[in-house]
């Protein structure tokens, strides 16, 4: 859909390192991607693959120390977010870029009313008067489908169910009409029937408001139903990215292929045995000098242990970081 549209967010060569006792953890290594206007980009990966840290790095949400953003450029509205002063960044966060976190229980403050928490960004970013902010807050609650919105503004988070709280979180993120919404595992803490409600709501809102969305999840099923384009992360790197149908229909990276076969699907014949990815995800003690998937990869060749594969192009907006898929000769 948004082909040829301009990139609203452009991330190049992002590298984030955590200093820990006795060494470093290279959580994000040379991550580059862009986000087009109105596009929904799905980011998938297992825990520790660096998907959340990437997004938190580009908004300056990581405490430093221990986090250290070594390299990279994040271009948003003509500015490099990694270089701007804290005041500008604060304006961007919660204003032009909204954020929805995984756990709606812990990301709302239990001692303030829901109304207060929705009005907070409106008052600070848009300088609305109290009554104007209240009207807007009511509008937002109606937008995310909370019944009797006006009355519920004075309720506290504990008076809402999990799904309703996530709707409130979405309302807060949408408060200042963001250009980009980053949703970090927004449905993981919810039940499937509630998850279905939130997914329908997000699709609806995206169409209505025309914002670009980054949706982080470990659930390929959710991604298949909602994303335009998908980026797969493993060991702190982007291993593959492609438009959603291309990624599911023609995956290039062995990790993506393995992920797709390891989950049982309701629509398919029941397999007698599940396909397994042997071994454990890598420990990111140092910057990768070889392919981080090679120890678990069924198709690894000698070069995989010598060099970290760059991202090879496979046609329109499809790339994968794999020597085997790119048919690079082993002599190289």
């Amino acid at each position, binding site marked *: 859909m948004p082909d040829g549209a301009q990139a609203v967010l452009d991330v190049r060569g992002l590298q984030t390192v955590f200093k820990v006792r006795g060494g470093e953890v290279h959580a994000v290594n040379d991550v580059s991607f862009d986000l087009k206007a109105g596009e929904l980009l799905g980011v998938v990966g297992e825990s520790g693959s660096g998907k959340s840290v990437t997004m938190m790095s580009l908004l300056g949400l990581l405490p430093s120390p221990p986090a250290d953003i070594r390299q990279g450029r994040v271009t948003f509205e003509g500015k490099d977010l990694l270089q701007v002063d804290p005041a500008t960044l604060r304006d961007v966060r919660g204003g032009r870029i909204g954020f929805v976190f995984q756990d709606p229980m812990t990301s709302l403050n239990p001692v303030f009313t829901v109304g207060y928490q929705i009005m907070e960004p409106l008052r600070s970013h848009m300088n609305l008067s109290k009554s104007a902010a209240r009207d807007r807050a009511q509008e937002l609650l109606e937008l995310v489908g909370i019944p009797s919105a006006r009355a519920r503004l004075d309720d506290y988070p504990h008076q809402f169910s999990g799904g309703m709280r996530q709707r409130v979180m979405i309302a807060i993120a949408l408060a200042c009409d963001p250009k980009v919404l980053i949703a970090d595992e927004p449905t993981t803490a919810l*039940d499937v029937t509630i998850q279905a409600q939130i997914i329908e709501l997000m699709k609806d809102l995206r169409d209505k408001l025309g914002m670009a969305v980054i949706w982080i999840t470990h659930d390929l099923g959710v991604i298949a139903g909602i994303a335009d384009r998908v980026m797969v992360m493993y060991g702190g790197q982007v291993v593959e990215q492609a438009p*959603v149908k291309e990624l599911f229909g023609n995956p290039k990276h062995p990790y993506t292929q393995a992920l797709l076969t390891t989950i049982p*699907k309701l629509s398919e014949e029941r397999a007698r045995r599940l396909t397994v*990815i042997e071994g454990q995800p890598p420990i990111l003690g140092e910057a990768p000098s070889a392919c981080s998937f090679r120890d678990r990869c069924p198709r690894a060749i000698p070069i995989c242990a010598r060099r970290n594969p760059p991202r090879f192009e496979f046609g329109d907006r499809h790339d994968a970081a794999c020597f085997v898929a790119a048919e690079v000769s082993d002599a190289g």
Partner: protein
Amino acid sequence: MLDETTPLVRIRDLKMHFPIYSGLFRRQTGAVKAVDGVSFDIQRGETLGLVGESGCGKSTCGRAVLRLYDITGGAIEIDGVEIGESSQSDLRRMRPTMQMVFQDPQASLNPRMTVEAIIREPLDEHTTLSKAEKSKKVLELMDAVGLNRRFAKRYPHAFSGGQRQRVGIARALALNPKFIVCDEPIAALDVSIQAQVVNLLEDLQEEFGLTYLFISHDLSMVRHIATRIAVMYLGKVVELAPRAPLYDAPLHPYTRALLSAVPEPDPAKAEARERIVLQGDVPSPANPPEGCNFCTRCPAVMDVCRRIDPTFQEVEPGRFVACHLYEDHASRAEKAEAHANQQGSNA
């Protein structure tokens, strides 16, 4: 020895209510009906999947079956022994037969005990083996669950989530149980590790002839592992059927909605799919609605559903459902209208 065809586990009208106390004198003012009249059998060597959303009572049910609670009512028969009313000392003698694997391997393993000590603990408690025999058995168990023997002296923190879950499984196997309740054993694990643990559980079942009650909210994984599936909603089993018919042609409107809500990892199918999006939230188990528990969200609701609680009955051989759509006293016209509503809500 009991006849091989009798079920290993027989649950009848199991109830587990937690009292609510309030007011100055802490009088009991109500009860959370976490499990409210559940009945099922589990045959020897089979896996019964127990699915439902959070708060539906599936974990409470699993724990109550093993008598980790003093149950409010009902009968529990395991391997021919009625344990619903048994005292703690009688239960203790039964424990080797029935074991449990918990959801969170982080929380269910003592961080101050080595893996060897954790797996040996049930042997210390329930057997009179010598020290050497116990050590040998521990190492055998570690082999069986695919843990490297060299790690026996390490502590749980040195292991990854998947490996910790293997420790939990080895501990459950130590006393050669017949019946294991697996309470969300893979929910805390990454997708690439989930398949490893599920395959292990299946291998062990084959090797040791185990019977599982597999509690999970992951419907695609349950379809893979379970022979029969019970679907719970708000403290009750709404549908119980063998795997194939349940997934191919679910009867209860809740089962249909639940299955249609499972995200399908295939964009083409995800588009084509008719999704039934249920409105609203699950009511509180402290204050369930009158009539059928699902009547507040059911797309096929009829008048009778708001008055009378449907009975859980066998509608086809081996298929049980609690829904007025499958009862005779609801008039034909009413059912037709309800079906039409349901079709309409799919579009």
